[in-house]
C-alpha cells in the first residue's frame, strides 16, 4: 500500500496538476515563439550616438543616410511566385504556361542591367499577407505573441518604415488591398482601399488600383506610392496557378506594368516628375500550384522583386548601356538574378530614401538593391581595378558607412531588447554577437577611419580595407539574423516532444489512478455489474475521441461549439433509446434536447457576430429598427425575470431541509447579491431613466459590493470547512447543501460579470445539469436493485463536460483573443491593474465553462438514488472518481489539441486559429486542475484519513 500512497486520495489531483503544469510549460517554450514588441522609434538625431563616420559636415542636413532616390513607387502583386517573373530558362524543368508572362520586366532586366534587375526575394514564414506586410515594413520577424500588441486591432505598434516616412515628412499614398489600412490606420495621405475579404472576386481590387494608379503617376502629391494588387492571389486560391484565369491576370499585369513604365520613362528627363524615381514591383509571398500559402515551403517563401531606377546615368562608366540597349532581343538571355531576404527590405529602402531605419529591424542593407537604387552598378567586379578609383572608393565608403549605421542600429535594438524582454536571448549568444560587433567597430575606428581621413593612400590599400570592413559588418549582421531566426521563427521540436511526452504520462497516471480507486471501492463503470467494458464506457470514450480528432481541422475548431452540441445531442438521443425502454423521463430528455437546440442557436448567433457582414446580421438589421422599442424592453426585462427565477429557486432551497448552518447564511447572502444585481441593471437601463441615482451612488459601488459579498461567502465556506464538524449523518444531503452553497457563492460574481446573459445562461446550466443528473440516474435505478454494485457511469460526466463547452460558446466566447469580453474586466473598476483585471476576465471567460461545472459536479454523485446502504467513504470515492473522469476528459481533449497543433505547426491558420485555441485550452486545463484541487479540499472531508 505504501508504494501507492502518493497517488491515493486527494493527492493524485496535485500530482496531476504538477504534471500538467510542467508539460505545458515545456511545450509552450518550444511552440509559442515569443518576441516582445518594443514601443521605441528611431529618430534622425539618434545617429550621432553611433560610432559612424560622416565624410563631410556639409551633408549634415540629411538624416541617417544620404537620400539616393527621390520618389518611390511600390507595386505589390500579392502571391507573386518567383517563376512568374524570372525567365523560364533559368529553371531546369520545361517552361510552364504561367512562366514568361510578365515579359516587360524580363525585357528591361536584360536590356538595362545597370538600372533594372530581378531579385529572388525570400520571405520568412508565416507567408500570409498580413504577417508579410508586417515583416516587410518593420524589418523584423513575425511571431505569435507580440507582447504589448493592442488588444484586437492589428495595427502595427512597432517602428516601421511607413511610420518613418510619415515622420520625416514624406507623403505616402496607398491603393488596393485594405490590409494596409488595418496595419497603418492613419498614416496615408491618400488612400483608395478595397476590401480583400472576398476571395472569389478577382477584379474589384485590381480595377480600383488601375483606375487610380495611372493618373497618380502624373501627380506631384506623393513621395511614396504603394499599389497592392490582389488578383493573382485570389485567382490562385480559386482556380490554382495552372488556370486560364491566372494567365489572364498575369497578361493584364504585363500590360499595366508596361503602361506604368512608359509613363515613368516619359517623365524621367531632367527636371521631370520622375527624374529620380525608383520602381519596385514585388510580391509579398509566393504560392503553391494549388494557390495555397502560409507555410514555409520553397514555393511559398520564394517571391520576386523587380527593381528599376529611372535616374539617368551620368557617369561614363555605364557606357555599355547604349550598346546593350535593344540588342539582346531574345528575352532572358543574360539576366543576372540575385537573391535578397525580405528581412532586408525595410532597411534597404529606408537607406535609399534617407530616413532612419526602423528601430526593430534586424535586416541588413542589401548591396545589390542599394547599389541599383543609388545608381552604382557592378562595383564588386571592379575592386581590383584602380581605374575607377575615385568613384568606386566614394561608393564603397558610402556603403561601409551605411553598414556601420546599420550595424549600430541592430546592436542597439538587441541591447534594448534583451534588457527589456522577459524571454530574451541566451547570454552566450549575446556575448558572441557583442564580440563580433566589437571587432567590427574596432576595425572601423582603429584602421579604416584613419585610412579614409588621411585620404591620400593609394587605392590599393584603401579599397581592400574598405572591402574587409564591409565583410566584417556583413558577417555581424548575418549572425544576428541567424540568431533571431532560430529564436523567433523556428519551433523547438525537442521541447515540444518532451512536453507532449509528459502530457501523455499524465494521462496514464490519470487512468491508473481511476483504475485504482475503482478497484479499491469496487465501483464499476458498467450497468451490468461485471468489471468489463460496457456500452456506456465505450460510447463515452468514442465521444471524447471523436471530439479530440475534430481538432485536427481548422474548420472544426472554428465550429467547436456546434460540434460539442452535436455530440451532446447525440448522447442524449442514444439515451432516449434506453429511456423508451422504461417509458419514463422522456420528458426530461426532450427538454434537454430542446435546451441543446436553443444553445446551438445562440452559438450560431455568437459565431455570426464573430464574422462581420454576415447574413444573419444583415437580416436582423432590416427589421431591428421596427421593433426596436419592444426589443429593448424585452432585452431589459428577460434577464430580470431570469434573476428573479434564480432567486426564487434559491429561496426554495433555503427553506427546504437541505440548508442548515453556515450554508444557509451563504445562500441568503447570494439572494441579497441577486437583488443588488437587479437593482444595478435597473439603474443602468435606459427605460427607467435613473442615471441620476447612478451618479449619486457611483456606478462602481454595487459591483464592488457584490464582489465583496462573493469573496466573503467563499471565505466563510472555507472557514466552515475547517472549523465545523459533520452535523448531519446523511452525507449525501450534506454534500448537496455544500454544493448549492458553493455554487450560489460563485454565481453572483459570474452573473454580474457576464451581464444580461448571465441569468439566462445560469438557468440553462441548471436545467442542463438537472437533466443530466436525472438521465444518469435512470440506469442506476434499474440495476442497483439487482446487482447491489456501486456504479459510476462515465457518460453523464462526459455530458457534463460537453454542456460546459456549449455554455462557453453560448455566453459569447470563442477561442480567439478577440473572443475575450474585455468589457467584463472593467465592471466595477475604471482603472487598469493587470492582476485584478486579469482575474475578472478569467472569471468571466471560464465562469460557466469551468468554475460552475467543476463545483457542481457533486450533484451527479449526490443525487443518485441508491437503495443499498451508503457509507460516507463510498460516496466520497465516487465523487473523487467523478472528478478524475472529468479531469481525464479535459486532459485528453487538451492533449489532442497539443498533438494537432504540433502536426499543424506549418499550417496556414496556425497563428490565426490553432495557437489561440491552444492557449485557451492550456489555460483552461491549468485552471481546471486548480479548481479540482480546491473542490477536493472543500468537498472530500476526511476522505484521506479513513481511506488509508
Amino acid at each position, binding site marked *: 500500500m505504501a508504494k501507492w500512497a502518493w497517488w491515493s486520495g486527494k493527492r493524485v489531483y496535485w500530482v496531476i496538476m504538477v504534471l500538467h503544469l510542467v508539460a505545458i510549460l515545456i511545450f509552450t517554450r518550444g511552440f509559442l515563439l515569443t518576441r516582445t514588441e518594443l514601443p521605441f522609434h528611431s529618430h534622425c538625431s539618434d545617429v550621432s550616438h553611433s560610432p559612424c563616420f560622416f565624410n563631410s559636415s556639409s551633408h549634415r542636413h540629411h538624416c541617417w543616410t544620404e537620400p539616393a532616390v527621390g520618389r518611390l513607387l511600390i507595386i505589390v502583386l500579392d502571391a507573386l511566385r518567383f517563376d512568374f517573373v524570372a525567365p523560364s530558362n533559368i529553371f531546369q524543368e520545361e517552361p510552364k504556361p504561367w512562366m514568361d508572362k510578365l515579359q516587360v520586366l524580363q525585357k528591361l532586366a536584360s536590356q538595362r542591367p545597370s538600372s533594372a534587375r530581378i531579385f529572388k526575394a525570400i520571405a520568412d514564414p508565416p507567408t500570409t499577407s498580413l504577417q508579410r506586410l508586417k515583416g516587410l515594413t518593420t524589418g523584423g520577424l513575425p511571431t505569435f505573441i507580440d507582447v504589448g500588441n493592442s488588444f484586437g486591432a492589428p495595427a502595427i505598434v512597432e517602428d516601421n518604415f511607413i511610420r518613418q516616412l510619415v515622420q520625416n515628412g514624406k507623403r505616402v499614398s496607398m491603393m488596393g488591398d485594405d490590409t494596409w489600412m488595418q496595419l497603418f490606420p492613419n498614416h496615408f495621405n491618400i488612400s483608395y482601399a478595397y476590401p480583400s475579404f472576398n476571395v472569389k472576386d478577382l477584379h474589384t481590387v485590381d480595377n480600383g488600383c488601375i483606375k487610380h494608379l495611372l493618373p497618380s503617376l502624373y501627380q506631384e502629391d506623393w513621395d511614396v506610392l504603394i499599389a497592392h494588387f490582389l488578383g493573382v492571389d485570389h485567382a490562385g486560391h480559386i482556380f490554382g496557378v495552372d488556370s486560364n484565369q491566372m494567365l489572364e491576370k498575369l497578361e493584364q499585369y504585363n500590360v499595366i506594368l508596361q503602361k506604368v513604365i512608359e509613363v515613368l520613362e516619359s517623365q524621367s528627363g531632367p527636371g521631370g516628375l520622375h527624374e529620380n524615381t525608383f520602381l519596385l514591383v514585388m510580391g509579398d509571398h509566393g504560392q503553391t500550384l494549388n494557390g495555397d500559402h502560409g507555410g514555409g515551403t520553397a514555393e511559398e517563401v520564394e517571391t520576386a522583386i523587380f527593381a528599376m531606377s529611372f535616374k539617368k546615368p551620368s557617369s561614363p562608366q555605364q557606357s555599355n548601356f547604349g550598346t546593350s540597349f535593344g540588342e539582346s532581343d531574345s528575352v532572358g538571355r543574360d539576366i543576372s538574378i540575385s537573391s535578397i531576404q525580405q528581412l532586408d527590405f525595410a532597411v534597404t529602402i529606408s537607406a535609399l530614401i534617407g530616413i532612419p531605419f526602423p528601430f526593430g529591424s534586424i535586416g541588413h542593407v542589401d548591396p545589390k538593391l542599394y547599389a541599383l537604387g543609388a545608381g552604382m552598378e557592378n562595383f564588386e567586379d571592379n575592386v581590383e581595378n584602380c581605374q575607377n578609383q575615385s568613384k568606386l572608393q566614394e561608393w564603397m565608403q558610402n556603403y561601409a558607412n551605411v553598414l556601420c549605421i546599420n550595424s549600430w542600429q541592430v546592436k542597439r535594438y538587441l541591447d534594448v531588447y534583451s534588457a527589456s524582454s522577459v524571454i530574451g536571448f541566451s547570454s552566450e549568444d549575446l556575448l558572441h554577437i557583442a564580440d563580433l560587433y566589437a571587432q567590427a567597430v574596432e576595425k572601423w575606428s582603429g584602421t579604416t577611419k584613419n585610412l579614409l581621413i588621411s585620404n591620400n593612400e593609394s587605392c590599393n590599400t584603401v579599397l581592400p580595407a574598405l572591402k574587409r570592413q564591409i565583410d566584417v559588418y556583413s558577417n555581424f549582421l548575418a549572425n544576428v539574423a541567424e540568431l533571431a531566426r532560430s529564436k523567433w521563427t523556428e519551433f523547438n521540436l525537442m521541447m515540444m516532444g518532451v512536453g507532449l511526452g509528459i502530457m501523455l504520462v499524465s494521462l496514464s497516471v490519470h487512468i491508473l489512478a481511476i483504475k485504482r480507486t475503482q478497484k479499491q471501492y469496487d465501483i464499476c463503470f458498467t450497468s451490468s455489474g461485471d468489471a468489463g467494458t460496457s456500452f456506456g464506457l465505450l460510447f463515452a470514450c468514442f465521444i471524447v475521441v471523436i471530439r479530440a480528432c475534430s481538432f485536427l*481541422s481548422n474548420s472544426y475548431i472554428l465550429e467547436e461549439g456546434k*460540434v460539442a452540441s*452535436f455530440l451532446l445531442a447525440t448522447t*442524449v*438521443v442514444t439515451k432516449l*433509446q*434506453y429511456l423508451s425502454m422504461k417509458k419514463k423521463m422522456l420528458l426530461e430528455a426532450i427538454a434537454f*434536447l430542446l435546451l441543446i*437546440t436553443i444553445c446551438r*442557436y445562440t452559438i450560431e448567433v455568437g459565431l455570426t457576430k464573430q464574422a462581420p457582414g454576415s447574413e444573419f446580421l444583415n437580416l436582423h438589421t432590416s427589421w431591428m429598427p421596427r421593433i426596436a422599442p419592444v426589443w429593448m424592453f424585452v432585452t431589459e426585462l428577460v434577464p430580470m425575470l431570469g434573476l428573479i427565477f434564480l432567486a426564487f429557486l434559491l429561496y426554495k432551497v433555503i427553506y427546504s431541509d437541505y440548508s442548515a448552518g453556515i450554508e444557509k447564511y451563504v445562500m441568503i447572502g447570494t439572494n441579497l447579491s441577486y437583488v443588488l444585481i437587479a437593482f444595478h441593471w435597473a439603474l443602468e437601463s435606459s427605460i427607467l431613466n435613473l442615471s441620476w441615482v447612478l451618479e449619486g451612488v457611483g456606478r462602481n459601488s454595487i459591483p464592488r459590493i457584490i464582489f465583496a459579498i462573493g469573496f466573503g461567502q467563499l471565505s466563510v465556506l472555507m472557514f466552515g470547512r475547517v472549523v465545523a464538524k459533520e452535523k448531519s449523518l446523511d452525507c449525501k444531503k450534506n454534500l448537496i447543501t455544500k454544493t448549492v452553497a458553493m455554487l450560489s457563492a460563485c454565481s453572483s460574481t459570474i452573473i454580474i460579470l457576464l451581464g444580461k446573459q448571465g441569468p439566462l445562461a445560469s438557468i440553462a446550466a441548471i436545467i442542463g445539469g438537472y437533466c443530466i443528473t436525472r438521465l444518469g440516474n435512470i440506469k442506476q435505478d434499474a440495476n442497483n436493485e439487482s446487482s447491489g454494485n456501486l456504479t459510476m457511469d462515465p457518460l453523464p460526466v462526459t455530458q457534463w463536460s460537453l454542456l460546459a463547452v456549449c455554455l462557453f460558446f453560448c455566453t459569447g466566447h470563442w477561442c480567439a483573443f478577440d473572443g475575450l469580453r474585455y468589457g467584463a474586466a472593467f465592471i466595477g473598476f475604471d482603472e487598469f491593474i493587470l492582476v485584478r483585471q486579469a482575474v475578472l476576465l478569467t472569471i468571466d471567460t471560464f465562469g460557466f465553462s469551468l468554475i460552475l461545472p467543476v463545483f457542481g459536479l457533486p450533484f451527479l454523485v449526490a443525487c443518485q438514488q441508491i437503495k443499498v446502504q451508503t457509507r460516507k467513504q463510498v460516496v466520497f470515492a465516487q465523487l473523487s472518481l467523478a472528478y478524475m473522469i472529468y479531469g481525464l476528459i479535459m486532459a485528453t481533449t487538451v492533449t489532442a489539441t497539443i498533438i494537432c497543433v504540433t502536426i499543424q505547426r506549418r499550417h496556414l491558420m496556425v497563428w490565426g486559429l490553432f495557437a489561440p485555441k491552444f492557449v485557451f485550452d492550456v489555460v483552461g486545463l491549468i485552471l481546471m486542475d486548480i479548481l479540482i484541487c480546491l473542490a477536493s479540499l472543500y468537498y472530500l472531508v476526511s476522505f484521506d484519513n479513513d481511506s488509508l
Partner: protein
Amino acid sequence: MKKKKQQKAKREAKGSAASVCAAEAFGIHLICGLGLAVAFWAARNFYSINLISNPSLTLRLIWVIECPIVILLYSHYRRNRQKCSYLKAVGRGLMGLPVGALVNAFGAIALGAPVGIKYLPKTINWSLMMSLFTVVPATSVFGSSWADWQRIFAHTKPIEPIDYMICIPAHGAIIGAWFGAWPMPLDWERPWQEWPICVTYGVIAGYLVAMVASSGFVLLRGTSQRVKGD
C-alpha cells in the same frame, strides 16, 4: 406474383406472424433500393436536376416514389393478421409518415440542422424521406404495439426476419445520417456540404449497406434455424 400468393397463403395458415424467407427479404430490399435508383433516374432525366442543384425537389421525388413501395411492401408483413386488414396496415403506414417525419425533423434540428424559412422545405422533404426509411415500415408492420417498438428500437433485439428488415435499415439510415453530417463544417466550399445534401448521401449509403446486411442476417438466421430444426 404467384409465388408470393402461395407464400402468403402459407403464412396465413401459420397464424398471426408472417415469416419471411431470405429470398423474399432480399427481394424487398432490392425493390426499395431500385425505388431509390428510379427516383434519382427520374430526377435526372425528367427534371434534369440532382440532389445538389435542387435538393428539395429531388428529396420530394425520392419520398414520393419510395412511399408507395415501402408502405405496400411492408404492409404485407403486418402483425396480428386476424385483426388488421391489409388496408388498415397501409393506412397506419400513411399516418406514420408525417409522425415519423416530425420525430426525425426534431432529431435533426436538435443535432444541428439549420432552422429558417430558407431551409424549411428541405428539412420537411428530408424528414419525410427519413421517416420512410425508419418509422414507416415499423408502423405498417407493428402498428401501435408498444412492446414490438421497444424490442426493435430500444433493446435492438430483433427476433424474426421481418424485425431484422425493419431494425437494421432504420439504424443504418440514422447512423449514415450522423456520419454524413461530419463534412458539413469543413471549409471546402463545395455545394454538397450544404444541409441536407451530404446528410442525405450518408442516409442513402447507410440505408443501402444496412439493407445488404439485413439480407445477410435473414439468410444466416434462416440457415441456422433450418439446422436447428433438423
